[in-house]
């Protein structure tokens, strides 16, 4: 598989997403009379805004050839930290700062283990997946902790510009910033380089370790932000907050055309995929499919989003007459990491 082929395919993948999105939108419009009103669209966004925010940073993580399973647990942890500190009457802004610092610190710790100790990110973030939620349990046990100051819950629930809430505005700002960084900055290019071939990146003088630490630290920070916003929206925190969100988040990113093997993907694809998944869930709710089954459908979508490109590219390889493929392919990033 040449890189050109993959990119041409990707372009088609994005047009496929647009098509799929239009179908889902059309269904929703026919089923609900006031579907396209600003209020309804804002509500729709609001329901999954935290996942959408984390999906932005997960795009960077997966393009760099890694994975972060700990994001949802980090959301729960940051929310629990805010709730616990609020309960012990700490100044609320200070509590938020502490929670963000925890997110940044633990994210950087993940990055340190991946980049410097050289452990597979799946194993490291699996520990975080279990451990961070475990820490959240230590802080708030099995209670439901609320009692946030009024401005905090208003921030999460009330619109600032019409029905558009702070979270939605923040999401669009972050999406713009993430898109610019990924596609128009040196750092973004380094993310792709590290993801497509870490060994080549090292020999080309790319600071691979630093890039990875920055990505994981940001992942922790953004997850913490999302967790705090989620706490503000719900008004109460349990240790099971945001459980299973990593499934939706990873699905969104992969469905957006980002390759699980790293090095391939675009922010436009991920944004399209966010809109698609949001509208799909909305459509399923209209069609009377419950939340639990929706998760199953998302899981199916996750598998298909990888399976279909695989089958298509295999079929292409079979039907197109191409010169004999080189005998030795470049090692995949994962094998490179195990050596380092």
């Amino acid at each position: 598989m040449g890189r050109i082929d993959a990119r041409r395919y990707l372009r088609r993948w994005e047009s496929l997403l647009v098509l799929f999105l239009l179908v889902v939108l059309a269904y929703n419009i026919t089923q609900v009379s006031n579907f396209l009103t600003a209020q309804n669209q804002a509500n729709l966004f609001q329901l999954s805004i935290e996942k959408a925010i984390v999906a932005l940073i997960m795009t960077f993580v997966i393009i760099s050839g890694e994975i972060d399973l700990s994001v949802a647990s980090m959301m729960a942890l940051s929310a629990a930290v805010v709730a616990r500190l609020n309960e012990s009457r700490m100044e609320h802004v200070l509590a938020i700062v502490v929670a963000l610092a925890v997110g940044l610190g633990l994210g950087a710790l993940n990055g340190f283990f991946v980049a410097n100790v050289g452990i597979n990110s799946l194993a490291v973030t699996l520990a975080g997946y279990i451990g961070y939620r475990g820490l959240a349990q230590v802080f708030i046990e099995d209670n439901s902790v609320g009692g946030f100051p009024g401005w905090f819950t208003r921030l999460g629930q009330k619109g600032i510009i019409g029905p558009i809430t702070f979270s939605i505005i923040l999401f669009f700002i972050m999406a713009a910033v993430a898109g610019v960084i990924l596609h128009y900055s040196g750092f973004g290019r380094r993310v792709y380089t590290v993801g497509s071939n870490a060994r080549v990146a090292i020999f080309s003088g790319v600071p691979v370790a630093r890039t990875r630490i920055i990505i994981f630290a940001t992942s922790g920070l953004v997850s913490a932000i999302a967790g705090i916003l989620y706490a503000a929206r719900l008004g109460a925190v349990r240790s099971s907050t945001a459980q299973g969100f990593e499934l939706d988040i990873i699905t969104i990113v992969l469905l957006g055309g980002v390759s699980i093997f790293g090095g391939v993907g675009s922010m436009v694809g991920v944004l399209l995929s966010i809109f698609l998944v949001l509208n799909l869930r909305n459509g399923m709710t209209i069609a009377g499919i419950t939340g639990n089954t929706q998760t199953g459908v998302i899981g199916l979508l996750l598998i298909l989003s990888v399976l279909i490109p695989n089958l298509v590219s295999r079929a292409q390889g079979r039907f197109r007459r191409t010169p004999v493929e080189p005998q030795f392919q470049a090692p995949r990033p994962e094998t490179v990491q195990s050596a380092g």
Partner: protein
Amino acid sequence: MTDRLLRHIRPEQFRELILLVVTIGALLFFWTQIPNYFDPRSINRLTVGLAIPLVVAIGQMMVVLTRNIDLSVSSTVGLTAYVVGTFLTRNEVSPWVAAVMAMLLGCALGAINGLLVAYGGVPAIITTLGTLAIYRVVLVEISGAKTVTTGDLPGWIGSLPSKTLVTVRDYDLRLMVAIALIVTIAGYLVLRFLPFGRRLYAIGSNPDAARMAGLPARRDVFCAFVICGGLAGLAGFMYLVRFGNITVTAAQGLELQVVAAVVVGGASILGGQGTIFGVLLGVMLIEILQQSLLRWSGLSEFVKDAILGLLILIAITVDAVVLGRLREAWVNTRRRDRAAARLVMEGGADGAD
């Protein structure tokens, strides 16, 4: 000193030794902290608690050996427990038939995973994260939020968990524990002596090399997933027998404990590395910690998961840092020994190396 040690012990064995010492250390520590820690009742409770995670972990380990992972096991356990339980409330069959049914259902669920991973080229983490949700949804859908209750089940279910094979001074060997031990021994024999078992190691340590060497890598990975599913199915039957009441959330979160046990037990998440003995120790250590921390008044039950996460982190870090060095030293020692032997054979000829 390290040289002499390394001549006799491989680094991997050293790792198991550490784990054994830690496990015994944990047992001794809780013995000093908790009164009557080694009395028959609490030991029996420990061994019974071990049985289900152990069976699932043996299957999980075979998948992990091939550089894959199966996160869907908990949903497989829950789904088979529920389906077989529902079947038993309506039909009269012997325990054996029920157990085989559960295993077959588990195999089928594992085969779906295996097909997608081995033949569809979908990474295992993606596949099983998806099927973790899908199998659970299937369970929710077919149950209609109804629960299988002990009262509806045939009588033998109630007596099976306490069925004891051997009793030595009040220490029981329960049937459930015996099944788990048989699975463990079978797993050991398969991985140690069967070509299939050896191939799993080969595939995991270098998938490309295994394929180029002509090993049926796809078929073997598929088989590993089927075995993992089958054992999860067996565990589902054991779950049904042990608890009787099966809700839609049955066995939720078990996958974490099992993957943690396999990783703590020394199986590398990058494949090709790990032993059944290590997994047995990993399952034991985690079960001991989970049960004993609850009873030890110094800690609340809420620190359980935090400690589990920390334990995994410690295990993989020790694996990466300490064992990496040990392995290097081991190779160097052997190289030096061989060089020395060659020197002796060549009668001390100069210009060696």
